């Protein structure tokens, strides 16, 4: 009569670690693909205003950013504490938005240009005057799709 024999010790065998590199590699690949490196240092302090009806930006690669806020602590003696505009990684004036938009548009492919979105990330304590100026300037260079950054 056949009997079931218990073979070996009753201890749980150790987990095989030979496949661990593969798993780690897989996670690594995921992170490499999904990360977007921060493009530029933030020169202005931006706390986004809160909103509940927010929508997600569909295409991140089609957007350019305009930061508006008071300069960070270390730039204050040079640029003051008034709200300033940051384009790429330097302080700019409203008039320079035109060149910035033109340059950003140049970077996109022909087909994507109409879908370019300008994301305005302004600090919640900013006064509307500067935002209005930016909006007028954007209208002038016909970058009409905008997004008010919120959280």
């Amino acid at each position, binding site marked *: 009569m056949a009997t079931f024999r218990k073979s070996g010790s009753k201890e749980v065998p150790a987990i095989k670690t030979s496949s661990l590199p593969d798993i*780690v590699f897989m996670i690594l690949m995921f992170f490499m693909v999904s990360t*977007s490196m921060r493009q530029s240092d933030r020169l202005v302090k931006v706390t986004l*205003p809160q*909103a509940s009806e*927010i929508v997600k930006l569909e295409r991140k690669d089609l957007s350019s950013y305009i930061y508006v806020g008071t300069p960070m602590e270390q730039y204050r003696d040079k640029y003051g504490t008034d709200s300033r505009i940051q384009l790429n990684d330097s302080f700019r004036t409203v008039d320079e938005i035109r060149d910035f938009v033109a340059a950003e548009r140049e970077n996109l492919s022909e087909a994507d240009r109409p879908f370019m*979105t300008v994301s305005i990330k302004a600090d919640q304590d900013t006064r509307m005057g500067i935002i*209005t100026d930016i*909006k007028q300037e954007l209208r002038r260079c016909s970058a009409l799709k905008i997004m*008010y*950054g919120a959280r």
Partner: protein
Amino acid sequence: MADISFIVLVFFLMVSTMDQEKGLSRRLPPMPAEDQKVEDQKVNRRNIIIVRININDRIFAGNEPIDVSQLKDKIKEFLTNPMEDPNLPEKEVKEIEGFGPYPVSKGVISLQNDRGTTYSKYIEVQNELVKAINEIRDDFSMANYGKKYDKLDEDKQAIVRECIPQQISEAEPKDINKK
């Protein structure tokens, strides 16, 4: 091998910014050409509501002061006009493709602000306006399709958008010419 990839993995974990871009999406009106005369597109007075935020962040809807919390209901009433009030916007029956005729409101919300208005208040008001429209869209979707607006498929969402358009005009700043 595993050690090295672990180190690289940790590096990517540290530097990765998983922040999603979120915000309120808007379309600016195109700039009128220089030679073009300012044609007064006479919008009937009853079809427009002016929401104004003054320098002290006080909100006025159609010349009367209003609190942020009441703004949404005011806008909803303005856009739906349930009692066919002659002082609220008129409706135009439009043939919507895939749905049929529907009385579309001609109401336009005009948002005005002062140069001294704070950005957070501006966004708060924008948010209320969008919320009002979203709620009307939800009600419409519930009544006709039995689902919320964002649960509908894209074709139906397009129909709902056409029935209840988002007509928010960010007014021309008043003092743009004298800088």
